[in-house]
């Protein structure tokens, strides 16, 4: 039996080259930490955020369950090892918080391909073919091995994955793992993403809507900015007979306003009139 999978967003980086906190960078109105956490939640994973000890009360980070770096390890390995200490039985799907192009399809592909008998499951970089260590699933035994690797004086997770029996995958979207390290890269990412570009979301259908859509869920790529706009688009596509005034909407398993903004990786459910009892 494979270990239970949990989600971890690494937010303890120093963002030295960016000269501002990468977790808080807003693109299309959503901070990069929220975006990464939302993508993991959209996959049905419980999400924790890796932080340094001096970041615990930051309001952006305080809204998530936190795992505090031990402080004796440098770089992203610190967050990985802290997560392993917090739950040694879990496998961790780890995300950096500077991946503004990351999409739900990439995570769905990673999770579906996961091989729990390996050290880790990761993508090959679309630029140099080497493992991408910060959008990857680390198995419990792999994290135990990483601890030894770090104890041996090394700390680079990419080098660790190269030496291990990592399952390497091709990326379904070659752009998805392009990260932003500098203000120039941020500007370029905003130029692409802030112009009303399409988001990919997961939509689940229940009851009459499931019958009319002919499916219980799907990935939808849309330029809709709000839940209301998304429903209008899908109502046209599938000929839904229910008007939005008789529905409610939930985003990531909580009721939401129709005007709520959508983020990539959100799971959206339109709720027809209920009839329990």
């Amino acid at each position, binding site marked *: 039996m494979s270990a239970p999978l949990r989600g971890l967003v690494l937010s303890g980086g120093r963002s030295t080259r960016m000269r501002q906190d990468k977790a808080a960078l807003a693109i299309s109105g959503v901070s990069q930490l929220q975006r990464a956490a939302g993508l993991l939640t959209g996959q049905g994973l419980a999400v924790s955020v890796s932080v340094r000890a001096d970041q615990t009360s930051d309001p952006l980070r305080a809204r998530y369950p936190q795992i505090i770096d031990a402080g004796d390890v440098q770089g992203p390995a610190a967050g990985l090892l802290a997560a392993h200490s917090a739950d040694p039985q879990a496998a961790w799907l780890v995300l950096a918080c500077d991946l503004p192009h990351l999409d739900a399809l990439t995570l769905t592909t990673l999770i579906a391909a996961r091989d729990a008998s390996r050290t880790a499951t990761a993508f090959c970089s679309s630029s140099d073919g080497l493992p991408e260590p910060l959008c990857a699933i680390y198995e419990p035994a792999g994290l135990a091995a990483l601890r030894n690797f770090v104890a041996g004086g090394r700390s680079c997770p990419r080098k660790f994955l190269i030496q291990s029996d990592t399952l390497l995958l091709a990326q379904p979207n070659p752009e998805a793992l392009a990260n932003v390290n500098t203000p120039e890269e941020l500007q370029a990412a905003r130029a692409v993403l802030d112009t009303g570009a399409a988001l990919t979301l997961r939509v689940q259908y229940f009851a009459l809507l499931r019958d009319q859509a002919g499916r219980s869920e799907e990935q939808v790529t849309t330029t809709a900015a709000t839940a209301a706009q998304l429903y209008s688009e899908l109502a046209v596509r599938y000929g839904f007979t229910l008007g939005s005034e008789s529905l409610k909407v939930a985003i990531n398993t909580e009721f939401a306003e129709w005007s709520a903004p959508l983020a990539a990786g959100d799971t959206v459910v339109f709720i027809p009139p*209920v*009839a329990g009892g």
Partner: protein
Amino acid sequence: MFRFTHEAVDGTALRSELLDHHCGGYASFEGWVRNHNEGHAVTRLEYEAFEPLGIKEGTRIINEAIARFGVTRALCVHRVGDLQLGDVAVWVGVSSPHRDEAFKACRFIIDEVKHRVPIWKKEHYANGDTGWVNCERCAADAHAHDLKAHDHAGHDHHGHQGD
């Protein structure tokens, strides 16, 4: 506590979860699958739920009932899947020091669950037709739906137990 089950509801087993020596009163309600609705002969029902949100909203209702009426324990279990006539679709039980609070909290929970928890019911009729309750007719006539949504007596499928 609120939960869903895909199995038959065993009221006797559920009742035992509410036993408490602090309590002198216990009230329960069972909603049953009935053989008719609004003049149509009903042969069976399908229930489905958006369970992750249903558990959250159902738990909020239980906590509201405990806070509002001061009862000691409260539990609601809703079945999903294919149900036959006479099956228990929903079970509510409340225990409290005195009976009045138990009755009131039990009534509050079933009323709120019917209105707020994302659960849907598909009726199968004797003539072979099917229909999602509260959805099909309102789709044809949104205004009529609004009236029904606020006066749900017309959709009550169930008899009271222990009245």
